[in-house]
């Protein structure tokens, strides 16, 4: 039973998050000793995968230099990219494997910790069956690691249950694009964005979550393009929106149906395209009839004439692009929302052409590549379905096993937690995932972790989740192991190894290879370096949808990335999908899909009358395991706060800086208010990057989209009241160095501007 071995306060005092402000050796050494070399690689954070040069001195990353020749970002970076180097020499880095001990964690040898891990996994599987052990992976890992995890689960452990934190990311769009197009990838390269006449951004906080994409949108506007933004909050790109649609959380489908309704009512659809390249249009057209602008306005709160205008702009443009992200996806109808976007693109023929398309803005560093090659519970390498006999046969041959030895589809990330609660899953091996912060209903997650008979974690810092582990295997940062990733635009990129892992930490892939050896599966995992994993991955993906066979590290370096599918060495790669209206289904056609309305899984009512929606800030990445340890990024936004409109705040006597308790059907937390006129008056917002008493995910619920299994982070019901005093977490949970809140001072430096 795995409660924390010692109290949370003692764990964070020992293992952080501590704040690192200065490069290893300090600023003076930085000035006096030039770097040994500059390593051209990519940022470890979001799905844009900006090119960056890391300064390396004495086997430490000590700074960065822009990489202006890399075409995607041309030297541009966000604050996370600028400061990412500070994690490399960070004092919190785990330098040895740790084993749970009565007084906390103790350092252990690799032999002891790997032996212990293998023994416990074997004992649990022998006692309860193969599927009593589950694995978690993550989409910030290189594609080699993601591939290795998928193979490890199915071959070394023989369990059905492997899923990953990308389940919180792109799966709704992935499911929708597969249904409609037969492939899960953004159809257009980012270079298409400036060429559109109209850009429609819905459910995507571009400026904070994909900052470099802002420059593409601004370039579109420079050339006369028009920008439509739909969001319950005015996010930073809204400042230049030509049309702003402030929809109510969870009503995106209604807005999208309304736009389609007007397009069809006014005859703005592209009949020739629909007839030649699609199926299923009539049923979708019929389903749009009910969504007239007035009905849409009642559901969404967006004025009918604004719906009309958006539809006329999109339908009337020669080239339109729709950009969408988690805002659409994090709903119990996330797949429907994405399908509704696709239906508009198909109806207007905005697909497969320069400057015309619908594009999902993938979130995580390897959000695209990490979901293509087998760490999803229902997938095999190459975006193959695990239930497809031909796919199983191909992959089994590459792996050297019989097809029937590959387990069938397992449970998704949240469902794994539920299976732990039910007692069906007893052991868990996790990497690159911090569910204590990132999964909904955080108390439920904690209870699940406490029920595990064995919990092993591979991580470079002791995350809030690793605090519950029986063994923590000290792994590697992105810059410590070579590999590939695939960016949001489908471009496969080469991650360079800049430095060795520090101390006794190991490269992640070595950990799994050595563990396989101890499980007696050595012959299936003969890899000495990532390059050998990639060689096998190319074979495994060959002939699949995400075909990497023609891609090599050398080609990526020479061509500054290769877009998949790339089936052969002489294939140029595929920056834009569906050119000429050819889609990936066997008949070559795209499929319109009917999208049914479904209410939120956590509806507002008289007791919980306010919408709660969650999201991100620009200076933090995901669960903050890395970015909550970097001083300047924490200073920029030290704590979550409650964004609230004065119409809601003033009657409750709430002013900026006041403590407010937010209560949902799960739990209550108390945060400082930020009273702003840039959010709907029926909605409050909290960024989710923090743990414990500051955790937005204590409030969210576990309702999943039935097809994508994504949780509904974007729509919860809550009530708010002014709190009499500061909450307990201010005293007990703030990491060392984070200033305590003081009434009268700005909540964040940027609230008063600058510092």
């Amino acid at each position, binding site marked *: 039973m795995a409660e924390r071995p010692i109290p949370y306060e003692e764990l964070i005092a020992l293992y952080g998050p501590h704040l690192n402000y200065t490069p290893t050796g300090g600023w003076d050494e930085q000035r006096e000793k030039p770097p040994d070399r500059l390593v051209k690689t990519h940022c470890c954070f979001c799905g844009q995968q900006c090119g960056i040069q890391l300064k390396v001195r004495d086997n430490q990353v000590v700074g960065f230099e822009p990489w202006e020749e890399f075409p995607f970002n041309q030297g541009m970076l966000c604050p996370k*990219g*600028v400061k990412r180097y500070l994690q490399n020499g960070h004092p919190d880095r785990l330098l040895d494997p740790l084993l749970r001990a009565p007084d906390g964690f103790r350092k252990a040898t690799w032999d002891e910790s790997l032996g212990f891990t293998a023994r416990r996994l074997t004992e649990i599987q022998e006692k309860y069956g193969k599927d009593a052990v589950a694995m978690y992976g993550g989409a910030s890992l290189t594609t080699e690691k993601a591939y290795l995890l998928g193979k490890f689960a199915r071959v070394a452990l023989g369990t059905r249950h492997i899923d990953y934190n990308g389940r919180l990311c792109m799966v709704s769009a992935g499911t929708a694009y597969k249904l409609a197009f037969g492939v899960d990838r953004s159809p257009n390269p980012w270079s298409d964005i400036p060429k559109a006449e109209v850009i429609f951004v819905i459910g995507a906080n571009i*400026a904070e979550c994909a*900052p470099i994409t802002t420059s593409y949108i601004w370039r579109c506007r420079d050339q006369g393009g028009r920008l439509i933004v739909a969001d319950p909050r005015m996010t930073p790109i809204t400042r230049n929106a030509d049309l702003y649609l402030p929809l109510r959380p969870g009503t995106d489908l209604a807005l999208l149906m309304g736009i389609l309704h007007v397009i069809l009512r006014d005859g703005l659809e592209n009949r020739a395209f629909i007839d030649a390249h699609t199926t299923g249009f009539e049923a979708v057209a019929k389903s749009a009839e009910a969504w007239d602008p007035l009905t849409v*306005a009642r559901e969404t709160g*967006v*004025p009918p004439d604004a719906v009309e205008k958006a539809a006329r702009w999109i339908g009337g443009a020669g080239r339109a692009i729709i950009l969408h992200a988690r805002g659409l996806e994090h709903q119990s109808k996330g797949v429907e929302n994405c399908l509704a976007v696709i239906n508009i693109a198909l109806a207007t023929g905005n697909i497969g052409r320069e400057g015309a398309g619908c594009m999902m803005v993938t979130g995580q560093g390897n959000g695209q590549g990490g979901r293509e090659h087998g760490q999803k519970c229902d997938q095999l390498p190459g975006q193959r379905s695990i239930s497809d006999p031909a796919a199983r046969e191909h992959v089994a041959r590459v792996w050297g096993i019989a097809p029937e030895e590959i387990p069938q589809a397992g449970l998704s990330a949240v469902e794994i937690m539920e299976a732990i609660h039910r007692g069906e899953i007893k052991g868990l091996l996790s990497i690159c995932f911090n569910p204590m912060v990132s999964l909904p209903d955080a108390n439920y997650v904690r209870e699940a972790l406490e029920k595990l008979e064995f919990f092993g974690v591979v991580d470079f810092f002791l995350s809030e989740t690793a605090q519950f582990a029986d063994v923590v295997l000290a792994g590697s940062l992105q810059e410590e192991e070579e590999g590939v990733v695939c960016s949001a635009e489908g471009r496969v990129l080469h991650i360079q190894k800049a430095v060795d892992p520090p101390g006794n930490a190991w490269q992640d892939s070595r950990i799994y290879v050595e563990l396989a050896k101890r499980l007696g599966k050595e012959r299936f995992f003969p890899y000495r370096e990532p390059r050998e994993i990639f060689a096998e991955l190319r074979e495994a993906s060959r002939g699949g949808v995400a075909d990497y066979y023609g891609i090599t590290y050398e080609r990526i370096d020479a061509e500054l990335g290769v877009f998949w599918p790339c089936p052969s060495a002489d294939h140029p790669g595929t920056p834009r999908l569906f050119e000429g209206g050819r889609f990936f289904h066997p008949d070559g056609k795209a499929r319109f899909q009917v999208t049914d309305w479904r209410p939120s899984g956590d509806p507002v009512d008289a007791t919980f009358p306010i919408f709660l929606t969650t999201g991100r800030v620009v200076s933090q990445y995901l669960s903050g395991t890395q970015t909550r340890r970097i001083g300047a*990024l924490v200073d920029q936004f030290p704590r979550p706060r409650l964004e609230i409109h004065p119409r809601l705040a003033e009657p409750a006597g709430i002013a900026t800086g006041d403590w407010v308790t937010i209560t949902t059907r799960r739990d209550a937390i108390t945060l400082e208010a930020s009273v702003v*006129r840039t959010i709907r008056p029926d909605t409050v917002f909290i960024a989710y990057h923090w743990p414990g008493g500051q955790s937005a995910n204590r409030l969210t619920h576990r309702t999943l989209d039935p097809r994508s299994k994504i949780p509904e982070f974007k729509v919860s019901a809550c009530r708010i009241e002014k709190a009499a005093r500061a909450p307990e977490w201010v005293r007990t949970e703030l990491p060392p160095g984070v200033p305590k809140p003081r009434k009268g001072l700005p909540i964040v430096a940027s*609230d008063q501007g600058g510092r």
Partner: protein
Amino acid sequence: MFGYEFYIDPERCIGCQACVNACAECDTHKGVPMITVDYLDRAHSIATVPAICMHCDDPTCAEVCPADAIKKGEDGVVQSALKPRCIACSNCVLACPFGIPKMMSKLELMMKCDMCYDRTSVGKRPMCATVCPSQALSYVTPERIERERREKPVNVFQFGRQTVTTKVYMMLPPEEIALTVDIVDFLWEKEAGG
């Protein structure tokens, strides 16, 4: 860098502070940024604005300096105060019409943006304008600005009776902008009474 000019377009700014963080990385000022990004009025708007030294033709900071510590180079770049001369009197801080110089009380020295002299002198662009994800800060050729932007570069500013001409350009919108201050203006319920 010959032929390149600095352009600020606040309308493009998304407040991400990449510029602030990148500026702080310079080993000449060791973690302290020489640039600020401010919300204009967070309660009413998401608009932010970056501020760097405008590098005036006749720098007010240098004119008011009693110690003659602030020098302008032939390239038009106004340098930070010279350490041996600066007496930390803050005259420059008070006099600058753009509010740029900062007094570093620990060092007893005024410091400000020198347009990344260490970079531009070796053919690199200033750090802030290189990383800026929205290109609210741009260091490019005038031809490129003319070709790619609708806004107009302006480098003459009127402060009361003082006319200030600067090396750095501010991009102004081609037509008047209407500021939107309240999300309620966009809501349908207002009309419908919902």
